[in-house]
């Protein structure tokens, strides 16, 4: 199919758009529209579509705008909640993984220096027998960090996990 155009096409198109065709058109344009394939197609198609549009707009069965407005508000609210929940979940997962890593590290450290869990349970049953020191091997983390004692180390790790979670939350929220 070859692409052809007619010099009168834009003129006829403008008349059709304004609804002035064929009454306000010149005899020359009408003659051209009758003989030119491009222009006759334009007139036929435009009139068919304009007529169909006029018939269709009256057939529309529409909701009230208030219903749609309310639905949009609800959807935006749900999206906002979902957006906020995402970084919170990420922070929780991060904090949990840090805690698990710490716990696994402690268990491995304990296992390397001999398990004392049973003796700890035995001591705990006696009055005044509960001692946290008994859980901890003498050459545990304190040997790696000689200037730190357990009372500082555990809160520091907990604080690290907490701050890591907050930082992750803020980073996710900004995205």
């Amino acid at each position, binding site marked *: *199919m070859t*692409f052809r155009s007619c010099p009168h096409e834009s003129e006829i198109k403008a008349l059709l*758009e304004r609804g002035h065709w064929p009454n306000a058109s010149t005899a020359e344009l009408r003659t051209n529209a009758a003989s030119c394939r491009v222009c*006759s*197609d*334009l007139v*036929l*198609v*435009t*009139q*068919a*579509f*304009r*007529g*169909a*549009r*006029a*018939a*269709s*707009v*009256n*057939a*529309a*069965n*529409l*909701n009230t*705008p*208030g219903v*749609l*407005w309310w*639905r*949009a*508000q609800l*959807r*935006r*609210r749900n*999206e*906002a*909640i979902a*957006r*906020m929940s995402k970084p919170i979940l990420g922070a929780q997962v991060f904090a949990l993984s840090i805690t698990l890593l710490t716990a696994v590290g402690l268990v491995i450290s304990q296992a390397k220096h001999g398990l004392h869990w049973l003796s700890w349970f035995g001591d705990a049953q006696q009055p005044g027998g509960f001692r946290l020191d008994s859980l901890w091997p003498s050459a545990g983390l304190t040997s790696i960090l000689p200037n730190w004692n357990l009372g500082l180390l555990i809160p520091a790790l907990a604080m690290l996990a907490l701050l890591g979670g907050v930082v992750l939350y*803020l980073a996710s*929220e900004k995205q």
Partner: protein
Amino acid sequence: MPWELILPSELNSLAGEAQPAIQLPMDNDAFAGFYERSARSLWAYLARVSGDAALADDLVQESYVRFLCATGSPSVAEGEVASRRYLFRIATNLLRDHWRRPKSSSIDDIPEEFFACADGSGQSDSLAMLGPALALMRPRDRQILWLAYAEGYSHREIAEVTGLATASIRLLLFRARRKIAHLLRNPVQSAPKGAANEMNHLNAGRQP
């Protein structure tokens, strides 16, 4: 640092007792006016291009909700023409998504009105003439023909709505116009029975 600064603004609005409305591109009154002026032409576009009035009802609602929820929606200051074009773009994408989904072909899914006869009013003559021809066109051709000749959109505007290149719209439109003009001139030879029924279904039950 106060929590109000850390938490996102949406959470503050949800946590407070007096909850302010979620920010939308238009206020309620502006939207009502825009809806009244644009909804019927959007419905006509969707109904004629899809050939399904019920689908057009659903897609019109979804288009407006997405329009209000979208962060890139034009604001009132950008003008109604831009908003209208954006709305048609959303509707076009929704229609495309619908066509991509697998279809159900059970006869139980076809409403009773599908088999009703068309009335003889003057406006329905246009539909009776155009409907079968339109049903024989490809979906993309139906879209661009409707946007060009029913809505009066320019090639650039059609390109924005459909996502096609502006340069290709002219040629696509020329071919589609040539084809539909042929179908309109020779309706008896080319229109299948199903196409006429489809458009009768659109007319039936929709007369006010």
